[in-house]
């Protein structure tokens, strides 16, 4: 793996951690599956880095969390988080970043804002919630429908995050186009 890819995977993993630690973005309306900026970290990683590197960045996050660093929203971390009802979301970040990155390269001919928005919504909301709801149903013995009901309150916040991610992607595409790795010509 190239040095640049290595550094950027570490960078997006760090951005993910920063988003979780930032009190301004932390809106703990309902605890446990906290509304945070953190799922935006998964969207950003996918949209900016592309499928493979985005997913690797999220795997790095999971790894560091498992090692015991409290980098998830609200200072959570350690092996405990993989046993909470929201564990599905935590594993879902990897898939979310992958799908978002894959969609970005699929839509490489379209406008950046639109494709980043689509990628964030499909990856960061549809895919993420599929994992999150499945995980919650599994951990709590609720039916899928009931688990879905417990998650629905988070959708409006996540839509906002998708829009913000798309705005960031557009700005970066304008100001520093070579940094939008998901759209870089495949070498």
């Amino acid at each position: 793996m190239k040095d640049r890819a290595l550094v950027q995977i570490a960078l997006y993993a760090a951005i993910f951690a920063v988003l979780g630690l930032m009190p301004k973005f932390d809106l703990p309306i309902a605890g446990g599956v906290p509304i945070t900026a953190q799922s935006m970290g998964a969207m950003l990683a996918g949209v900016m880095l592309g499928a493979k590197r985005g997913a690797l960045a999220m795997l790095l996050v999971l790894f560091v969390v498992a090692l015991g660093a409290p980098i998830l929203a609200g200072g959570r971390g350690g092996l405990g988080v993989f046993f909470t009802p929201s564990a599905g979301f935590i594993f879902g970040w990897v898939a979310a970043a992958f799908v978002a990155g894959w969609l970005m390269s699929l839509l490489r001919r379209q406008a950046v804002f639109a494709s980043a928005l689509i990628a964030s919504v499909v990856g960061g909301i549809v895919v993420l919630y599929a994992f999150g709801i499945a995980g919650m149903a599994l951990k709590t013995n609720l039916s899928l429908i009931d688990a879905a009901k417990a998650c629905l309150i988070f959708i409006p916040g996540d839509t906002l995050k998708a829009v913000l991610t798309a705005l960031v992607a557009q700005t970066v595409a304008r100001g520093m186009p070579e940094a939008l790795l998901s759209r870089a010509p495949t070498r």
Partner: protein
Amino acid sequence: MISLYLAERSWAHAVPAGWKLIALALISLLVTPFDSVPLMAGLLAAVLVLYVSLGRAALRQVALLRPMLPLLVILLGLHWWTGSLEAGIAMVLRLLAMVLLANAVTMTTRMDDMMDAVEPILRPLAIFGLSPRALALMVAMMLRFVPLLFALWEALNESWRARTGKRGGWRLLAPFCIQTLRLSHHTAEALTARGGAPRGKRR
């Protein structure tokens, strides 16, 4: 970077990280199929006894569960509503016990010991050209980036406040991203200049 690790030594600190991880995996597999309230209450009680044996600092960490409580109440309500309160109570007890147990492993194991313990599992990653040393480098870089990014954000926030008198908030995201990307380019160049990321298969 604060860690959840407890500096105060206890008997569990002396247990090798690998054994603790294996025990955690086994217990989590064993308790999954059961739904009996007394059994789960017993498990939770056993975990709490474990915490008591680890000392007062460990017991204080039980407070980390507080943000989970509202969600547990909602989930319990959903269980009650859909039929079985008993299954709901068993579920809540199991969740609490497993989260606390996993946390106990984290509290009593140093990060580098944990890294050493999982290294054998990571060896297959070499197939994808990722050596465990490169992974260790990425972990270190990530942890170093976090305070750096905070400082960057604060600098942007202050310059925004100097010009507008208000907090920047989400408006800082785009310049923040561009600055961090520039930072990462410099880091990558510095890494390459120093011989690049480790590529060898051996640690």
